[in-house]
């Protein structure tokens, strides 16, 4: 096949290639825990980051008077309802 190809290989290359390739099954069947470890670390990081973002965004900041007023106006709360609520 390689008659037309202008290439050569190092001497004894194909013997060494076959012996290296024959070792693949032994290497591949050994239990490889690295992907599982990486998955566990990624999951933990995801939980930590999610928790951090969640606690930061929901941390209670007292609303200003302006914000409360705007909310009441936007929600259509009437003065009567407000007075009732205060009396209550």
């Amino acid at each position, binding site marked *: 096949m390689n008659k037309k190809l202008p290439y050569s290989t190092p001497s004894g290359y194909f013997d060494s*290639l076959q012996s290296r390739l024959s070792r693949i*099954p032994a290497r*591949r069947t050994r239990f490889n825990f690295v992907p599982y470890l990486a998955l566990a670390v990624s999951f933990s990081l995801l939980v930590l980051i999610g928790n951090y973002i969640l606690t930061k965004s929901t941390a209670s900041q007292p609303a200003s008077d302006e914000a409360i007023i705007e909310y009441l106006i936007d929600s259509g709360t009437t003065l009567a309802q407000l007075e009732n609520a205060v009396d209550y």
Partner: protein
Amino acid sequence: MPEQEKYFNDLVKKYSEPLYWHVRAMVGSHEDTDDLLQEIFIKVWNAMPRFRGDSDVFTWLWRIATNETLSHLRKARVRAALSFVRIDTEAERISDPDPYFDGNEALRALRKAIASLPDKQRLVFTMRYYEDLSYEQISEITGTSVGALKASYHIAYEKIKQHLTE
């Protein structure tokens, strides 16, 4: 020795050398071919439980090797683009500094011309020219129609002819 391992070793014994030349014809460099063969046989080992013999072993192996080689060439092109290496330079790299290149100047020019082809055309050309595979065999390996392969080969042939007469 388990059955799968014995079968794998038989494949290595029978096909590692022809597969080496199949990949080398496409890639050019001995070192890259050597690395790719490791990857190819790891893929073969992993895919063995799923191989049901729908296609023959030759087609199955050549398909894995061809896909892996095309993927390697694509990555090399992207890497070259990111490091702002001209594609011509990449094509020249394939022939020039290889200590395992045995050809004369005409063969070196032919290698450069082949290396300058787009991947698919290079694939079809090398499989026809160096491996003497039929269009039907190449079609089974690549999943491309015979007509499209013939067109690709013709275009590749014309480009090489033009490259060599420039």
